[in-house]
């Protein structure tokens, strides 16, 4: 698919609208149970009662920051979540979302509305379904060893 077509496809066209959120005081084990039930590997963290997205927690965070460190599974999410995770908006192009994934070497972005509430999640798999070529470029960039020089900006310079 050509780059101009990737620009015309919006995040809203490919994202998942069903969002399971957790609170910062939830525990690693409760988050793991929800991930298992929902079949997802990342959950946005929201401020209880307010709904503002504070960050994101992933299955990898639980493995690397809790289990591998020997911490208790009752460790609270706020102790190992990624604060102020990268996000995008429904009206953004999938090209822009892909650029963020490539730049930050991540596979998911929380989609937020004007109030910074979660509107959905867009994953690299969602982008790949809409544009296999673009998804492949991002995946190639994420999978590569970290470069010695500063990160390259933009998807146009990615190598397959």
């Amino acid at each position, binding site marked *: 698919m050509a780059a101009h077509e990737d620009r015309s496809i919006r995040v809203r066209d490919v994202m998942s609208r069903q969002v399971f959120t957790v609170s910062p005081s939830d525990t690693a084990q*409760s988050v793991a149970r*929800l991930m298992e039930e929902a079949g997802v590997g990342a959950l946005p963290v929201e401020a209880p009662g307010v709904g503002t997205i504070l960050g994101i927690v992933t299955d990898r965070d639980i493995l690397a920051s809790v289990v591998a460190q020997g911490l208790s599974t009752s460790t609270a999410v706020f102790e190992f979540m990624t604060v102020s995770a990268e996000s995008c908006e429904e009206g953004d192009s999938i090209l822009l979302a892909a650029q963020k994934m490539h730049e930050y070497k991540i596979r998911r972005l929380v989609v937020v509305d004007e109030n910074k509430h979660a509107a959905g999640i867009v994953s690299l798999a969602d982008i790949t379904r809409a544009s296999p070529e673009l998804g492949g470029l991002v995946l190639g960039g994420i999978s590569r060893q970290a470069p010695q020089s500063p990160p390259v900006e933009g998807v146009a310079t990615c190598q397959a």
Partner: protein
Amino acid sequence: MPSLTQDRLWSEVVILEAPRRVLRVQSTRDAFLCLKNHWPLADGKAKREALAACDRVIEGNDEPDAARAAFIKAAEEAQFRVNSWTGA
């Protein structure tokens, strides 16, 4: 099944202990998932009532601590040792 995109926190954590297991539960959705997927008893009166209570609470038709109380009864039925900070 209730919509699990919603959750309602309890006033106090419940800690369930069994040999080689500790479940720490502080919300209605998490209690529902424990009962549904991680429970030692396949069936039981208190378990059924707790699942129904969680459903009501998640749907907004009851207070969160109603689910907490029902969950504790189900835990006792399943022979967990039940702990909380205040013993409530």
